[in-house]
Structure formats: structure tokens, C-alpha cells
């Protein structure tokens, strides 16, 4: 129909439609970026686990918000033995290595945590390390000595004895020269050193050390309680949300439309059955059914999508489409089609359905975000997909960890903003399309 193209061309005259289209384009661009920049397997690894996020701080806020305040807060700083100078002596069958990890600490705020990761390679005899902290002024502080396993995490900031000696939590005490109990501790900026003296008992044995001084802020959207970068979830949540919303909207609209058209065309008991099924289905509560299935069976997002579509087929839309199709059924062109021998399927799919498609486009567009919200609601209720990172799951975690009580507002605002942008974009476009395709709303 030409009015299709004309209608789309008319969109330019509606500022809300242009804004909506921009928001949708932004979301689509984000989705494409997420899928290409972070491949699915990578995203799963970043979100699900293990070593991938040991370098990220816990519950760090977004870095750009700190920058608005002047950029005082500490960022994460790392120092690795790969870049460090190593002196080695050998005597009496043992080798003694001295590794000096240097790092510049130039921030106004204290770090959130200090960890040392040690990976050693040995046959049977564990190496022995002795750790010394050297401040910019040259003061030395003994941090302890220990045997080292194959992989070891030394949580310096968790050291109770060190905290007792310093009078501050270690991540504060190590970076200040303010004596405890006098005033607020101030950061001493400069180059710090961690001296690792290693005693190796084997010829081939080696040791890798990584010192991580965790910052207070991280990335665009901060991190959560499991050190996961929220940026990954918010980026990857976009294609998941768009795909779910779009597939659910397409699935329900197309099937509903065809069934409504078939009911109108065949009439009689076919129509009556469809109408009664619809009336029963309308009063079935969708969300509790989804909760039940999620609890008893599986919370896979694809299963949820299937259930949403199946329960959406005999939805209230059938009543609306039926009302629109009843006059179409009486059209002379349908009678003409019967007279030249068109089949029932052809009449339904090619002559009846296309007639009301333009009017359906706005409904379809505004339907997409409702399914996005439905998926988020399920996730907030703890029925999110077990594998995929989604906006709703971030909100669920935030709620479970009392994010707002603890002041981690970014944890809630990030996904909520994404959801709102999605809703806003599709709603603004949908309302404009409604004005274009629905003649009754078009004012003179």
C-alpha cells in the first residue's frame, strides 16, 4: 500500500517520532556493538565467572560520575612481576629473588581493597616469600612471610594483624602518613613499592606476582557485589531485551491476527470456538503462570518467550482484530476474489490480513516494550534466564543486595535507565505512528 510509504515519510513531521527513532537506533547500535565487541561466549565468561573479574573492585561506582566531582576517587592500579626488576642471588642450593613491584598512586581517595596474586611453578617444594611495603618516603613496613602454593591470593586489606599495627584498615593505612586517632587520614601520593623476596628451592621454579590496588570507581556503570562489570550486563541486556520484545511482539501479533482473520472468514463454530477460547484466556493471569513455570520447570528466556507467545495468541487483540476484520470480510473485493476462485487461505492471508496491517503497526511498536518489561519483571522476581546477563537480573541482584540502602544508586539507575529508554523510544514512535495510521486520531 502506498499509504505505508507515505505514512513513514510523514514520520519526519513528528518530533517525538524522530526522537523515538533516534532512541531505538541508539539501542540497536548498542545491541550490535555488544554482540560484536563482546562475543556471546566472552560475555558469559565475563558475567558468570571466575578469574575474569578478580581484577575489578567490589561495588565500585561509575568512573564518569566521580569525574564530574573532580576525579578524586582511586582507580584500580595494577603492578605485575612481568614488568618488574628482579634481582637474583644463589647460595647453598637455594635461589633468592628480590622482585620490586612499583606503582604510582596519584589519587585523592583511598583504594577499596589491596590484593596480591601469586602464581608459582614448582615440582614439590613450595617457595617462601617475604613481603615488604615501601612508601614514597622510603619507610619500610613488613607485611608478613609465608609459603606459597600454586596459586595464592594474599588479601592484604583483610589482614587483621596489619590493621592492628597500622591503626587503620590496611587499604587506608598503607597509603597515609597521618598518625591514627588524630584527624581524617590524608592520602600520601607518590610511588609505592612492594618488595617480594622469594626463596626458591628448585632450579626451575618460578613465581609470578600481581599486585592489585582496587579503586573506588570503575567503568561506565560500576561493578556489583561479585566484582562483575555492570557495563557487560547493560550492554548485553540490550540485544536480549530487544530480541525478546521483538520476537514476542511478532509472535503474538502475527498468530493472533491470522487466527482472528480465520475466525472472521469461516464464521460459525470456528469463530465461536476462537471467541470462547479468547474469553477464557483473557482472564488467565499471565505473570503468575510464568512464575509457576519458572519455579517448577525452567527459567530459560526462550521457554518464557514460547509461553508468552502461546498465551498471547488468544489475547484481547483477537477481539480488536475481529472488529476490524468483520467489515473487511464484507468488502466487494473479497467477493470478487471468491468469484475468481481464490482459496480460503489466500483470502485470509493475502486479502484480509494486509487490509488492517497499517492500523496494527502502532500497536505492534508499542507492544515491544511491554514484553521487554515483562521479561525484566520476571528477572526481578528471580526468574531471569540463568545464563544471559539481562537488565532485570541486574535489578534483581541490586535489590537482593539492598543496593539503595547501601547507597549503590548506580546499580539500580543503570538498568532502570536502559528500560526507560527502551519504553520511551518505542512509545514515542508508536504514538506518532498511531496518529499517522489511525485516521480517527488525525486532527484536521
Amino acid at each position, binding site marked *: *500500500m502506498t499509504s505505508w510509504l507515505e505514512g513513514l515519510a510523514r514520520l519526519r513531521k513528528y518530533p517525538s517520532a524522530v526522537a523515538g527513532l533516534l532512541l531505538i537506533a541508539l539501542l540497536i547500535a548498542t545491541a550490535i556493538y555488544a554482540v560484536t565487541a563482546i562475543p556471546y561466549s566472552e560475555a558469559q565468561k565475563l558475567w558468570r565467572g571466575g578469574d575474569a573479574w578478580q581484577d575489578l573492585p567490589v561495588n565500585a561506582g561509575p568512573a564518569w560520575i566521580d569525574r564530574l566531582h573532580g576525579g578524586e576517587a582511586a582507580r584500580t592500579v595494577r603492578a605485575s612481576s612481568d614488568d618488574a626488576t628482579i634481582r637474583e642471588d644463589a647460595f647453598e642450593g637455594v635461589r633468592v629473588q628480590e622482585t620490586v613491584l612499583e606503582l604510582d598512586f596519584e589519587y585523592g581517595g583511598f583504594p577499596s581493597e589491596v590484593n596480591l596474586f601469586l602464581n608459582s611453578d614448582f615440582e614439590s617444594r613450595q617457595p617462601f616469600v617475604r613481603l615488604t611495603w615501601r612508601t614514597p618516603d622510603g619507610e619500610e613496613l613488613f607485611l608478613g612471610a609465608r609459603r606459597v602454593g600454586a596459586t595464592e591470593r594474599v588479601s592484604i586489606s583483610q589482614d587483621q594483624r596489619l590493621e592492628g599495627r597500622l591503626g587503620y584498615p590496611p587499604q587506608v593505612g598503607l597509603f597515609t602518613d597521618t598518625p591514627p586517632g588524630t584527624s581524617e587520614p590524608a592520602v600520601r601520593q607518590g610511588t609505592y613499592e612492594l618488595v617480594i623476596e622469594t626463596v626458591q628451592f628448585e632450579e626451575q621454579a618460578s613465581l609470578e606476582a600481581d599486585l592489585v590496588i582496587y579503586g573506588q570507581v570503575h567503568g561506565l556503570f560500576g561493578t556489583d557485589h561479585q566484582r562483575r562489570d555492570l557495563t557487560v550486563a547493560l550492554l548485553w541486556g540490550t540485544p536480549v531485551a530487544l530480541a525478546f520484545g521483538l520476537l514476542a511482539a511478532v509472535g503474538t501479533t502475527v498468530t493472533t491476527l491470522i487466527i482472528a482473520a480465520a475466525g472472521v472468514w469461516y464464521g460459525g463454530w470456528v469463530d465461536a470456538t476462537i471467541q470462547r477460547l479468547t474469553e477464557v484466556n483473557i482472564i488467565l493471569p499471565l505473570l503468575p503462570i510464568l512464575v509457576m513455570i519458572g519455579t517448577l520447570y525452567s527459567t530459560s528466556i526462550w521457554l518464557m518467550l514460547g509461553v508468552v507467545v502461546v498465551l498471547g495468541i488468544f489475547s484481547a487483540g483477537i477481539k480488536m482484530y475481529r472488529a476490524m476484520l468483520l467489515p473487511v470480510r464484507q468488502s*466487494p473485493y473479497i467477493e*470478487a*476474489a471468491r*468469484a*475468481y*476462485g*481464490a482459496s480460503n487461505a489466500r483470502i485470509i492471508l493475502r*486479502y484480509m490480513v494486509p*487490509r488492517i496491517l497499517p492500523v496494527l503497526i502502532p500497536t505492534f511498536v508499542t507492544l515491544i516494550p511491554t514484553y521487554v518489561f515483562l521479561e525484566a519483571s520476571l528477572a526481578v522476581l528471580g526468574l531471569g534466564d540463568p545464563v544471559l546477563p539481562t537488565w532485570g537480573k541486574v535489578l534483581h541482584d541490586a535489590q537482593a543486595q539492598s543496593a539503595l540502602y547501601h547507597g549503590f544508586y548506580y546499580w539500580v539507575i543503570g538498568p532502570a535507565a536502559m528500560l526507560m529508554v527502551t519504553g520511551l523510544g518505542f512509545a514515542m514512535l508508536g504514538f506518532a505512528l498511531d496518529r499517522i495510521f489511525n485516521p480517527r486520531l488525525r486532527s484536521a
Partner: protein
Amino acid sequence: MTSAAQTSPAPASGQSSLLDVHRLRTHFELRQWGFLRAGTVHAVDDVSFQLNAGEAVAIVGESGCGKSSLARTLLGLYRPTSGTVRFAGESLSDLRGGALKAYRARVGYVQQDPYGALPPFLDIRRILAEPLIVHGIRNRQEQERRIDAALEEVGLTPATDTRGKFPHQLSGGQQQRVVIARALLLRPSMLIADEPVSMLDASVRVEILNLLHRVQQDHRLALIYITHDLSTVRHYVDRAMVMYGGKIVEQAPVEELLRHPLHPYTEALLGALGDPDPQNAGRFRAVPGGEPPSLVTPPAGCRFHPRCPIAQKGLCDSREPSTRTPRPNHPVDCWMRE
């Protein structure tokens, strides 16, 4: 049209008729609450007539007399309640599947509302391709060839100008030409035109009627021209039938009917025609009043008797008139004509 000869179907012999309608009844049940019988609409009630190949016949009657129901029954869109429709010797109610589809290809249909008869969301090329696709002609070049030929035949030249347009971009007359082109595409042997000009501007009515007449002549089509307007009948058909209250009350060759109307209803229809003679301006003519008969509870006896100026009490209001032939080739259902 030179292309006419090649597209015309094999001419039927003059002896056996192409269409034979025998005691056809199409009734509709009225129901209350979906199942209680509340009455029956006698839309087509005991109609019989024959139509030869290449013959044009008009069915004339006022709104609600059952003309369109008759057309739809002949097209196989309504199932007849009783009676038979034989087309080229085959009974329409026996046709199933492929045979019914073949019948639909042999009968073209031109409707009253040209804009409504064309799907508004398809362009003309696609609209005309649809019947071809339905009947298995999927070769694109073959489609193009036949579409262009049909468009040119109905006077939409050059065809390339029209093909890409949508129905709303055409005038009413052009739309009706497209409808006629569509009816001709499958090379039918019979055309049913249900009030083809009543929704058109007066200025294009004659053009469309001339076009219908020309294609009817060129293709030797049997034509059933349904109208409420006797004035459009004279030059275009061979025979006219007058329908009243679901029945055919009079039929005759068209000149005979116009000159010697026998049924009082036919006389009334003729009397309602405009009179171009200025001498008669302002002269009052006796036209029977009253309303068209109810098809649910038709009047007893002759259905025209409540409005008839010559009805006889005790006869016309109690007994249905039988068919008689007071003039040769001119049967009429009226007690008062012998």
C-alpha cells in the same frame, strides 16, 4: 478489437443454451439467538430462464427484489435452496474442487462499487495478476502479456501507465475498467455485471456500458446485466427480464418489452423513466405508490397486488398468477393479461 477473436471461447451451438436456470430458489434463514428460526428471506423464489452463448440479457428490478442474490447464486457464492443451475450442461451444485474453480474461470463478475471491488493495498498489476496466479499462471511474462492485453482492451492505454498505480489513484470510470479487465482476464464465456454503472458519474456511464457491449460482442460473451434502470437497457442487451419480489414476472426481447410492456410493474418502471419531451414538463404521471414487498412475508397471491392499479379482489390477492404468453416470445405472470 483485433485481439478479441483469439481470446473468444469456442462458440456454443445455438440450440442448447449455455446457462439453464430451472426453478431456482435461494432462501436465507433468519435466526434469533443463533438457533431459533425467526423467518425465511425468499430472495430468489422459483426463477427459471435460459441464456444462450453470446446472448446479452438484462435483469431489471428495484432494490431488494433479489437481483443481486440471483447473481451471487449463479456465481456459486450462495448455495441455492432448491432448483438447478446448469452451465454448459453441468449442474453447478455438483461441481467440486477443480471443476468449481474451472467454472469460476469461465464466469466473470463485475460489481457495483468499483473502488470496493479492488483491494486498496495492491497495485493494478498485482490485482490483475491475482486471478492468473489463482488459476496457475505463474509465468511472469505470460502474466504481463495478458495483463497488458486486458488493460488495453478496456481502453486503459498505454497499459504501462496504469499498471503501477493503486486503485485510489484512478477515477471511478478507470476503476470500473480495471474491474472489467479482471473479469475478462481468465477468458470467460459468461459475464455477470451487477449494476456496473450505478455508482459511476453519469458522464462515464455510457462509456462503460459501451465498453461492456463491445467486449460482449467481441468475445461472444453471454452477459447478464443487472440493473434497476430500464433506460440503460435498450442498446446493450437482446432480452430483458423484470424481477419483482424474488420472481421473474415478465421477459421479452428488449424492444418488445419496451414497446409493449404487459406486467403492470413493468409499465410502472417505464413510467418512472425521464421523459425528454419538453411538452410533458410538469405533467403528473401516475406511478404506483407503496413499498417493495417484504421478502420475509411476501404478499399472498400476486406479489405486486398491493401496489397494482389493476388488481382484482379475490383473484390477485389470493392466487399466484401462472405464466401465460399473450404475445409471442413474451411470457408474463399476471392474471389480467390473456
